[in-house]
């Protein structure tokens, strides 16, 4: 039986095992929605903005490890996806975005709601397709999913003209396999490279593992733990690598970099070997490149050959899938106990207690995160936006299980926290999901509280509300002569009333003593809740290594007056 293009899309999604997609219809994509109602197996979650659809697909993909799917119409629908797609691209998240396009005869004529979305998304997708023939639809979608999830994952966009969705019919033929000449994602690494890496590990006196998002993507959580324990190597994680190694493990040594723990940055600085696993030496991690880990040899394991030597020259580059590489590596690594080095890292931790929270009656955001961590036993999925709240969450939440921090790391897109949390909860309905927002980012995507209510998505939304774009304010304080131009939000809405307007509970917390009860109350309510934590405007994130500088220029929290040694 011949099917329409729209039906072929739905059949293809089913073949790929898709059971949920996030989207918002419009003219050019409407034929797909016309078919969707006949496919009840495909749950569609109606978002209030296409950016939310893309970010929800991202959150879904990260929480589940499966490909997230979003859909939007042509023109503005497609352009609204762009921020979400760019974020997924920077963080190597597999999503497939399906966009409607104006009918083929109208392409290139500046038709209503026409926009060259394949052109726009060239540099922010792993690949994209403009499908001009209904017979090409099924192979294009199969390829899109394959490209999105294999190798270094990433977003793939499939743009489909309206008349391809609706016009002539074609037989639905699902290709047996994908054959893309020249696209062969690596698995096992070259033995010589692994042997060199093993030798460097066996020779090292002060090794550090720098674990990134790749550990989570390749499900190498267990292998990482084995490597660390086998040779007694402290593990620091990048922001996206957080939850790749349990924070309560005795070898866990924090997060280095711009707002990382001082001891983690210092451990990397003093190491004689950095074992970089599935990370890309982002500037927020390295600071000034020439001063990064100056005493160390570098092992760099990555699945993307263009990452090797891109920012940091590796002594031992290893190209391969991280899980495969670690399995190759483990038998070659000698059991070691770097007692002196582990003691040194411990003493760095004691000398630089970056996570100590000031003893005060004031409501501190760090305390909120620490309480949330305790009350959820470090096992909730934490979804953050970008800014101070993101760093406090990264620093003070004790992540115990893999894939439990979802954040826009590379792109740093504010507003990510609300929709990505919706996606994470849809993907993991049995997990507790907390969206952690600042008041700035929350206002970028809070319209999608309606999506949470409408689709019954039980996410708890915390706002660390300081009435200011906090991280920008912090930079103004440190680097722009305290000229707080355009950062204060002097007319924030009442977030409790706002929650109530959406038909859900809002809780305001102003006192330290209310923090734990409010979190408990929010979790006891069977549905979305907004908790508005009112914090002071001028709380800063410490430590801080200014952009482009190095560990030597690190600023740690100033001691309160009259108190010695507390940071």
């Amino acid at each position, binding site marked *: 039986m011949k099917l329409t293009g729209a039906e072929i899309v739905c059949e293809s999604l089913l073949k790929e095992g898709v059971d949920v997609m996030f989207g918002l219809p419009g003219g050019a994509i409407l034929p797909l929605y016309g078919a969707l109602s006949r496919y009840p197996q495909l749950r569609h979650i109606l978002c209030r903005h296409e950016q939310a659809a893309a970010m929800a697909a991202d959150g879904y993909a990260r929480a589940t490890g499966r490909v997230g799917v979003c859909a939007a119409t042509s023109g503005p629908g497609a352009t609204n996806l762009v921020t979400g797609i760019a974020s997924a691209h920077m963080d190597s998240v597999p999503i497939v975005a399906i966009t409607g396009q104006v009918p083929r005869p109208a392409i290139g004529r500046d038709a209503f709601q026409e926009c060259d979305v*394949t*052109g726009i998304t*060239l*540099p922010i997708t*792993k*690949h994209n397709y*403009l499908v001009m023939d209904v017979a090409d639809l099924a192979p294009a979608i199969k390829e899109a999913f394959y*490209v999105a999830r294999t*190798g270094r994952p990433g977003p793939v966009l499939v743009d489909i003209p309206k008349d391809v969705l609706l016009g002539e019919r074609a037989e639905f033929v699902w290709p047996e396999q994908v054959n*893309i*000449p*020249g*696209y*062969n*994602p*690596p698995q096992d*690494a*070259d033995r*010589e*490279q692994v042997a*060199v890496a093993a*030798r*460097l590990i066996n020779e090292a006196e002060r090794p550090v593992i720098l674990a990134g998002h790749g550990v989570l993507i390749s499900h190498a959580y267990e292998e990482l733990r084995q490597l660390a324990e086998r040779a007694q190597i402290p593990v620091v994680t990048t922001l996206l690598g957080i939850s790749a190694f349990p924070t309560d493990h005795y070898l866990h040594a924090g997060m280095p970099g711009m707002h990382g723990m001082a001891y983690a940055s210092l451990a990397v600085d003093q190491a004689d070997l950095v074992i970089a696993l599935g990370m890309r030496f982002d500037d927020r991690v390295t600071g000034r490149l020439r001063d990064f880990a100056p005493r160390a*040899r570098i092992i760099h394991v990555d699945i*993307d*050959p*263009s990452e*090797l*030597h*891109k920012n940091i*020259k*590796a*002594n*031992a*580059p*290893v*190209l391969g899938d991280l899980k495969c590489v670690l399995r190759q590596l483990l038998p070659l690594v000698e059991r070691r106990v770097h007692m002196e080095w582990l003691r040194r890292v411990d003493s760095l931790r004691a000398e630089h207690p970056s996570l100590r929270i000031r003893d005060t009656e004031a409501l501190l955001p760090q305390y909120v995160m620490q309480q949330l961590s305790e009350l959820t036993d470090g096992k909730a999925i934490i979804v953050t936006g970008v800014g101070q709240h993101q760093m406090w969450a990264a620093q003070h939440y004790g992540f115990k299980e893999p894939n439990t921090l979802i954040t826009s790391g590379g792109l740093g897109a504010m507003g990510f926290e609300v929709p990505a949390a919706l996606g994470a909860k849809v993907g993991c309905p049995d997990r507790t999901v907390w969206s952690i927002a600042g008041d700035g980012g929350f206002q970028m995507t809070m319209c999608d509280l309606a999506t949470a209510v409408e689709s019954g998505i039980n996410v708890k939304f915390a706002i660390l509300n300081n009435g200011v774009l906090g991280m920008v304010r912090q930079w103004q304080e440190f680097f722009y002569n305290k000229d707080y131009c355009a950062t204060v939000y002097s007319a924030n809405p009442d977030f409790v009333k706002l929650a109530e307007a959406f038909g859900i509970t809002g809780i305001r917390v102003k006192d330290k003593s209310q923090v734990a009860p409010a979190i408990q109350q929010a979790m006891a309510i069977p549905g979305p809740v907004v908790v508005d934590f009112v914090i002071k405007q001028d709380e800063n994130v410490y430590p801080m290594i200014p952009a482009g500088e190095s560990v030597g220029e690190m600023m740690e929290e100033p001691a309160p007056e009259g108190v010695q040694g507390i940071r």
Partner: protein
Amino acid sequence: MVYNGHQQHTITALVQDKPGVLARVASMFRRRGFNIVSLAVGNSEQPGLSRMTFVVNGDRDTVDQVTGQLGKLIDVVRISDLSDQETVARELALIKVETSPANRGEIVQLVNLFRAAIVDVGAKSMVIEITGEEDKINALANLLAPFGIKEMMRTGRVAMVRGQAEGRVSDSVGIGRRGDIMDRARVNYEGV
């Protein structure tokens, strides 16, 4: 070849002959800040595949990044860095030069010396076709300049490894292939 203090590198890429492939490649070069000196595209010996020849400026690391980023493009099938290889490289140029009855003979002599060809003769100009390496074309263009070059069009370099290319490591550089592994992920033994 050294140009403006930078090494010039010749890279060829076998790409799928699909709409937008040139835009993908060009977009990658622009976004990553790589400088293309010349780019030539045409059909290859295999149906459905085109071959691109790039000349890029930069040091070894830059060229490694270029090949690495090119390799990530899904439509790129294979990349060869010809920099350290014995190659045949050619460019074609059409040069329209002003002529008068008085200097026509002298120009014809130059054309013959360079084994170029005159492909069009008009009352006040002629069109010269020359094929060769860039240096040869530059040399003829310099000699013709005093007569007045009205128009010049150059194809950019196309290049090919001498002898049998099959089986060469450098000709099988694509993501995930062994050749690629050895080439892209060169172990830096200094300090190891």
